[in-house]
């Protein structure tokens, strides 16, 4: 659906430029949510939330599947995150721990 990298970037930045969409993305990255359950979380119409979900879907950040009458949305982590990126985030966790260990050891020495 999206032809080239520039179009993909446009769709991605557009998708992430809205607070509600970022919130929806955070939720669906944690696990699958039905669109109707998402709609209940925001002070806007079901159709408006559905539209936000569609924008995220076009950017490749979210995928949808149907189950009965429900549309279920989940974050497409494969698209946006590689193993390398994940390890970089874990590295951040560790750098924080080591800084805290260092600080504690120095503090106890005094």
């Amino acid at each position, binding site marked *: 659906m999206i032809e080239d990298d520039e179009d*993909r970037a446009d769709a991605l930045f557009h998708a*992430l430029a809205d607070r509600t969409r970022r919130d929806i993305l955070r939720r669906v990255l944690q696990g699958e949510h039905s669109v109707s359950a998402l709609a209940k979380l925001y002070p806007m119409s079901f159709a408006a939330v559905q539209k936000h979900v569609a924008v995220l879907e076009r950017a*490749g950040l979210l995928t949808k599947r149907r189950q009965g009458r429900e549309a279920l949305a989940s974050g497409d*982590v494969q698209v946006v995150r*590689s193993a390398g990126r*994940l390890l970089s985030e*874990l*590295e951040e966790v560790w750098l924080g721990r080591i800084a805290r260990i260092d600080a504690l050891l120095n503090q106890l020495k005094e």
Partner: protein
Amino acid sequence: MPVVDISKNVDALSLTIVADFAAPVQRVWELYADPRQLERVWGPPEYPATVVDHDLAPGGRVNYYMTGPDGERFYGYWQVDQVASPDHFTFADGFADSEFEPNTDLPVSENTYTFTAHAEGTRATYVTTYATAEGLQQVLDMGMVEGSTSAINQIDEFLAA
């Protein structure tokens, strides 16, 4: 900065961090042997850790929870495997329910921490391995890092793809 080396093995999904601390091996070991010290270094300031049970012995358990900014708790445990005080220990780190029963739906990491005397201090080597990328993803999403920045951090990765 005490970090001397970081190596990521993308295929094995492991992270190895080597750090030098200006304290004797026994002193560094006590960070892990003492639950009150462990909770001061384990969780980031936004997710402080509380160690509830602490048995750093082969077959022992360390149970803890981390409290998020809006008060929600993430329960975790260490299933301790080998312990050779004060040189090294190995354990599995997983998620649990509020009774500290392991949550088998969530990923477990295998960890080896090694401490050796080095240049009047201690060289610590931390190795953490996950079985799958999805597992590591889940761990990160569950509050080990601030979720609000991760969506934005994904942009350059996406553009590079």
